[in-house]
């Protein structure tokens, strides 16, 4: 018997393993990585910042494409120079030689140095792994300083017309300065910046307004509809199917549909709203901040209230009708029945529906992206939209990841609060 238990347990772990590994690889690991990205100044459009560097490193390919030629050109220049110039040039050459030796003092760097040099001499292209070598911080700082000095001196000499091959020399010196890769680790700087950035707070506020208002309306309306249709009637299946359609259609497509209906010139819904006086004129819906927020919330309510009603209806149907019969025999009014029987027994259904809806609303993206794009003037920009814009329009993956982590933390806090209320009900074995 014991053996059987053991083998059952082993089988269970084997069956669960593939799913768990997949979830770990495609969901949990990326979230951890997002957090890691958010600690760097990580920009895809900037070659020096398009990967993550904790330490200083040297691009040997660029270095060796400039350094030897800079040295030889300097030497030629020195033989033709006199007096003060000659002294300056000599000192530059000595300094450069010195830092070059300092870099090569590290055995690993020296080895790679030779390797890349040979590859370049054969007119081949070194691979990414070979050409980028981490270097000592002190050496890196000395190198940067020397390169800057060199650039400065050569520039002023060149401007005074004291150099024969001035442009070539300054060009080589510039090439050299691109070889040092500085660490782009910024720690929590992104978070610090964003927490003092009015745009983030505005986005958080917009997200909260959208979430709280739309979810409350959906709950009240959904509950009302569920109570009303919780009876036997003709055409029940048809009604159920109709209310599933808004839920099933892609959000992006429904958002576009609403954009057409809200249109300031030709939108039928905008016209009706203006006719009955909800708005002053048709264009108000998509061109004013309040109008746009209203439009977004209205579309969301249209799309998800039916879903909410279905969830609550399913909950209502599990309440035994004998309870209501007993209550009415005891003389309880409809309202009393609702408050004393329906609400308490529906509590866990309501909380589960609220949990899923709140989280969905908080991470809203498709609806707003297509309907308003976050506008006008960022008045409907939610935190997910802001994060998307920072990442893909500004190609600032570090800052965008920091915003994404903020969304993640908010979602985690919201779920913790709900789960506190729900208890372990949600995941318990219902044997």
């Amino acid at each position, binding site marked *: 018997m014991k053996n059987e238990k053991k*083998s059952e347990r082993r*089988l*269970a772990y084997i*069956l*669960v393993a*593939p*799913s*768990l590994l*997949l*979830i770990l690889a*495609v969901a*949990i*690991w*990326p979230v951890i*990585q*997002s957090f890691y*990205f958010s600690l760097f100044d990580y920009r895809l459009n900037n070659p020096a910042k398009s990967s993550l560097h904790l330490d200083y490193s040297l691009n040997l390919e660029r270095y060796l494409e400039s350094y030897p030629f800079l040295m030889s050109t300097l030497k030629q220049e020195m033989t033709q120079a006199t007096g003060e110039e000659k002294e300056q040039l000599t000192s530059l050459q000595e300094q450069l030689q010195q830092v070059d030796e300092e870099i090569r003092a590290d055995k690993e760097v020296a080895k790679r140095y030779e390797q890349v040099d040979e590859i370049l001499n054969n007119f081949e292209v070194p691979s990414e792994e070979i050409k980028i070598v981490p270097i000592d911080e002190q050496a890196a700082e000395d190198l940067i300083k020397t390169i800057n000095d060199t650039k400065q001196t050569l520039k002023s000499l060149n401007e005074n017309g004291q150099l024969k091959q001035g442009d070539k020399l300054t060009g080589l010196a510039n090439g050299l300065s691109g070889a040092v890769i500085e660490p782009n680790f910024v720690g929590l700087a992104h978070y610090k910046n964003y927490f003092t950035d009015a745009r983030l707070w505005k986005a958080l506020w917009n997200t909260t307004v959208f979430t709280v208002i739309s979810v409350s309306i959906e709950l009240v309306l959904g509950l009302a*509809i569920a109570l009303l249709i919780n*009876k*036997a*009637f*003709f*055409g029940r299946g048809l*009604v159920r*199917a*109709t209310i*599933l*359609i808004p839920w*099933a259609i*892609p*959000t*992006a*497509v429904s958002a576009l*549909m609403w*954009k057409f209906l809200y*249109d300031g*010139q*030709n939108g*039928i819904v905008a016209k009706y709203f203006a006719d009955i006086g909800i708005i002053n004129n048709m264009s108000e819906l998509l061109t004013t901040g309040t109008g746009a927020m209203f439009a977004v919330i209205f579309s969301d309510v*249209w799309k998800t209230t039916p879903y909410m009603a*279905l*969830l609550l209806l*399913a909950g209502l149907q*599990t*309440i035994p*009708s004998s309870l209501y019969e007993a209550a009415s025999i005891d003389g309880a009014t409809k309202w009393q029945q609702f408050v004393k029987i329906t609400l308490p027994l529906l509590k*866990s259904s309501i909380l589960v529906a609220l949990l*899923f809806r709140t989280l969905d609303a908080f991470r809203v*993206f*498709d609806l707003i992206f*297509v309907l308003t794009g976050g506008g006008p003037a960022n008045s409907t920009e939610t935190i*997910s939209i802001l*994060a998307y814009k920072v990442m*893909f329009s500004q190609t600032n993956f570090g800052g965008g990841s920091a915003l*994404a*982590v903020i969304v*993640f933390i908010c979602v985690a806090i919201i779920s913790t609060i709900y789960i506190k209320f729900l208890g*372990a009900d*949600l995941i318990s*074995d219902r044997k």
Partner: protein
Amino acid sequence: MQKKAGPLFYVFLFVFVFLVMFPFLWILLSSIKPLSELFGEEAFNWFTSHPTLKSYVSVFVNYPFLKYLWNSTVIATITTVYTVFVAAFAAYAIARLDFKGKSVILGIVLSVSMFPQIATISPIYMFVKKFGLTNSYLGLIIPYTTFALPLSIWLLVTFFRKIPFDLEEAAKMDGATPLQTYFKVILPLAVPGIFTTSILVFIAAWNEFLFALTINTAENYKTVPVGIAMFQGQYTIPWGEISAATVIVTIPLVIMVLLFQRRIVSGLTSGSVKE
């Protein structure tokens, strides 16, 4: 509270259904209007006197709409088949077998299904870019696992739990191993649940927007939601074509919902209602 419905109730019902369906109705009516009647004074007329199918033709002629439909179908189908297959094993173990750490695993599954997509997008984008998977089917199928797999496991666990436990006991008595029990006893009974799960996962994958928007940007690899959303040009929005395209994607959905509404509802509510 099973009461008979009065006539007033049917009036309410009609109004409710009409309001819910109004946007679709309007889009349907607009899709057969000639271009000139979509704007200006005539824009608010319910019925056009010159119905035309021009917008429908344009959707297929001027846009690679058929390609969008094909891309979405392939991506959503493969995502559904593979995640439901993998999830079925895990769900069986969680629902029917006795082992430690069960609720922790289910807790992980549930929390992952609540992850905001935006929190995973940057590493996933870098990953697919690094492996050259942008603008490919695989480039979306892999990221879609993030929501499809937890959803499948979650739904399947609730379905597996509903199958009577006596059956397993009986199979065990007859000397069947757990794996035999799974394939011979549980799986045949779980077919309806697996089917329901597949419908819901398919809809979720079909509707996904953010990953599709960022990863498959080439015309030839766009999915339906992104394709339609990108119909809008810089300055003009082709409402006629958009209406027609919306009708085209909504019709199969309506048929599916009519056919499977019972299953869809049972799937949607299975995690939230205690029975």
